[in-house]
């Protein structure tokens, strides 16, 4: 049993009580909602005659269904229009703050909450989206939940949960040039497996994470869920506080000093006990690419698609399925795989630092012939910042399309979709079958800089050759 970790401290502070089922009733400090998983929850609330208990602790935005080209209302897609209207109405009726398109602060829910300073250390956060684990980068305990649980949070500001075990994942040392936070988390998932984290929260610790900026930490925590962990977090430190200071909802004046003192107090103790500890060496991590249909099926860019006999027996069945679906064969080098589409964006890698790294690769070069390459900022603020820095020009001159903010082709609930068997290099988080909008479309996950490299070369390539 873990003891003295940030997870334990935050859990205890937010425990309302124990339910008859033995589950803990846990207070949720920040509830984020969007258009896909909330309308049914509001409907359930109405059916039961319940009100939103803490409307002031819920914040809404629209992201999944938002078109990234023409955002004029009503949307061309009437179903998307119906969803945004439902959210607009539900927020208005329930007095919930809503960052709508054009507000200046709309964007992917996991991008805007940190940039607004809503996400803070020591909070419990819930959202009807599995990548809520992103907010753990701040030392918050953040859970992705389903729609019935969205209803529960709206009605009671609490969830019924059983406590997780805590695994400390320590990565130490400097990352080599061309190796990014995305490579770190893909490496961890590849090693521990996509179900390795079931039953756990992941504490990311060690000098590698300490050296990362907040956006890099968000990338890592974002994909904790892809490793099966319910949440992931990094203990708050000076980097966290420097990022938060001055943001819209960050504590101000005397509250700031009180906040920092409290945040320091909820860090994992030096002698904290963990249920499990795993240690990695940063120097061993190389630019990583997925070749299969789960985020755990990744390899170094200079490695080859594994032979079945190199895999654990339990992983062979899905590997066979992946070879067939991806049209890749065991032993095939991943480098040189021809690409059709290159997508930079998503809640994993649609932040300003991601765009900066990709722009460094794109600058003065050009997208290979026949490649569709596009960049989707994670939020209106990211877009604004990128344009101020001239990144949009760099991308456009290199032949990338520059789009409006949204979830875009990560899950393709909007017009951005793969067509037929197209294969994409994507900075998103899931390479599941059919994920990017075509039931036979294929996804290779990699860092934004690696996606930019693939766009320029027209095939999977090693970013280090363009640094």
């Amino acid at each position: 049993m873990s003891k003295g970790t940030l997870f334990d401290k935050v859990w205890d502070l937010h425990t309302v009580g124990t339910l008859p089922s033995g589950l803990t009733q846990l207070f949720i400090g920040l509830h984020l909602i969007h258009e896909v998983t909330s309308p049914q929850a509001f409907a359930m609330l109405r059916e039961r005659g319940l009100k939103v208990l803490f409307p002031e602790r819920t914040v809404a935005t629209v992201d999944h269904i938002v078109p990234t080209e023409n955002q004029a209302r009503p949307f061309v897609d009437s179903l998307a229009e119906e969803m945004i209207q439902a959210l607009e109405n539900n927020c208005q009726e329930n007095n919930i703050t809503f960052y709508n398109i054009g507000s200046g602060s709309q964007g992917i829910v996991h991008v805007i909450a940190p940039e607004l300073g809503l996400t803070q250390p020591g909070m419990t956060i819930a959202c009807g989206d599995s990548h809520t684990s992103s907010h753990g980068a701040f030392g918050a305990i953040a859970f992705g939940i389903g729609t019935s649980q969205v209803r529960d949070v709206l009605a009671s500001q609490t969830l019924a949960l059983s406590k997780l075990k805590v695994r400390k994942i320590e990565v130490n040392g400097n990352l080599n040039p061309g190796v990014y936070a995305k490579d770190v988390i893909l490496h961890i998932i590849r090693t521990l497996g996509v179900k390795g984290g079931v039953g756990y929260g992941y504490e990311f610790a060690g000098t590698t994470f300490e050296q990362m900026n907040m956006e890099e930490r968000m990338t890592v925590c974002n994909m904790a869920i892809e490793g099966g962990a319910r949440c992931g977090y990094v203990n708050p430190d000076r980097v966290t506080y420097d990022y938060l200071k001055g943001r819209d909802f960050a504590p101000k004046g005397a509250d700031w000093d009180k906040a920092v003192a409290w945040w320091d107090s909820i860090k994992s103790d030096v002698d904290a006990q963990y249920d499990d500890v795993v240690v990695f060496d940063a120097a061993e991590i190389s630019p990583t690419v997925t070749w299969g249909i789960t985020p755990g099926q990744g390899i170094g860019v200079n490695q080859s698609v594994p032979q079945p006999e190199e895999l654990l027996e339990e992983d062979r069945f899905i590997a066979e399925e992946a070879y067939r679906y991806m049209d890749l064969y065991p032993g095939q080098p991943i480098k040189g795989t021809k690409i059709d589409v290159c997508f930079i964006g998503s809640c994993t890698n649609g932040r300003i630092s991601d765009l900066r790294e990709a722009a460094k690769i794109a600058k003065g070069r050009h997208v290979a012939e026949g490649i569709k390459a596009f960049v989707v900022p994670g939020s209106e603020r990211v877009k604004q910042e990128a344009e101020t820095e001239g990144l949009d020009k760099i991308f456009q001159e290199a032949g990338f399309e520059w789009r409006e903010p949204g979830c875009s082709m990560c899950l393709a609930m909007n017009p951005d979709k793969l067509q037929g068997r197209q294969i994409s290099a994507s900075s998103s988080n899931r390479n599941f079958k059919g994920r990017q909008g075509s039931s036979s479309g294929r996804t290779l996950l990699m860092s934004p800089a690696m996606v930019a490299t693939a766009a320029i070369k027209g095939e999977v390539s090693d970013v280090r050759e363009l640094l």
Partner: protein
Amino acid sequence: MVSEVKTVSGRGIPLVGNDIDTDRIIPARYLKAVTFDGLGEGAFIDDRTALKGEHPFDQPQYQGANILIVNRNFGCGSSREHAPQAIAKWGIQALIGESFAEIFFGNCVAMGIPCLTADAATVKQLQKLVAANPQASVTVNLETLQVQIDNYTAPVAIGEGTRSTFISGTWDACGQLVANASQVRKTSAKLPYIGWGNIAAS
């Protein structure tokens, strides 16, 4: 709301494969709706189309089956409740598998659908028995924690707290959570950040 789930009886449907994710259970294009109605027809639709009638959900012998037998890490991926909703709307009332992704498990529980686990060999045997005799009667008993297929009986598992919510009919936590509103306010009042961060005052 009291709705006890002590046993689920009917027929089984085997779905072989590890790490079957929520995008496969219900592709994202089916999420474009403000209700869960009509999700049943989208269950596994891309896999079913690719398999041209050979997917268990399309095979005639499994029509009407209500107990889904899966393998490892079923339901990984998105938090979309649309996935268990699609399965439920198809007619599935209980799942048995080696393991389930946690959000998927939580969503199922919140909907009153028990997900029970068994070891790999047992799951394989259950899938084999159902494939050999799709008409066999299957019973999942949450009180005895056993699954029975004709004369074959095997142990199944589920967390004790979750099991008790099914047996007592209290799996729908909403009522209990709402009932504790005053305690919720007391807990929130002790959290320092409640005082310094007023979201509504934007």
